[in-house]
């Protein structure tokens, strides 16, 4: 399965990229699993992910949400709009 990952706000700066692709042989990846994969790839995220929400296809989802092939997963750090 392929997951398209998008980093927002300071995360984009932290990882040095706006997007990333996750490409796995197996299916059944949860958001929690995805977070683990991203931490492994970008160690800088370890201290960040505590305050980060995940949105899949424009909905904020829980840690146990099951990703599907082709999903877009957005990493949303603490917000500061207004």
């Amino acid at each position, binding site marked *: 399965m392929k997951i398209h990952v*998008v980093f*927002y*706000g*300071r995360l984009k*700066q932290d990882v040095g990229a706006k997007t990333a692709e996750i490409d796995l042989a197996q299916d059944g990846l949860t958001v929690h699993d995805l977070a683990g994969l991203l931490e492994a790839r970008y160690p800088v995220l370890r201290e960040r992910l505590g*305050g*980060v*929400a995940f*949105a899949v296809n*424009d*909905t*904020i*989802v*829980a840690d146990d949400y099951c990703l599907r092939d082709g999903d877009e997963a*957005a990493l*949303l*750090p*603490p*917000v*500061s*709009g*207004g």
Partner: protein
Amino acid sequence: MRMSRWILDTPLQLEPLLAETEDPASGALVIFYGTVRNENDGQPVHSMTYEAHATLAEKVLAEIEQEALERFGVRRCRIQHRIGTLQLGETSVLIVVRAAHRDAAYRASRYAIDAIKQRAPIWKEEHYISGESRYLDGVPLQQKDIE
């Protein structure tokens, strides 16, 4: 970058929102502008860049408008947030509320801006006169806030 009813990458304009919300049964109109100011925590600010998860932000701003109507009984509520790089004095957020009476209008307007700051997936990066830039600390999004 895209244009919508809620998220715009061009200067926010009051007049179209006033026209859109016109209402003969409203006696009170409260307008809130958030603008880029020239300092933060003592550091002179040069400009500000706003970024949004546009599709999710539109959903959230539309929900906040609806909540303002329902919770406070106001007759109109429209919210727009700008993205991109803004200069000093430019408007980052614009909220228009119309109600029969002033109490509801003030309360709904205040509710809307507070909710935006808590729940809208929008981030700002401050650029200082010194040349440095910094993402401001923010509020973690909660799943329940949006679903």
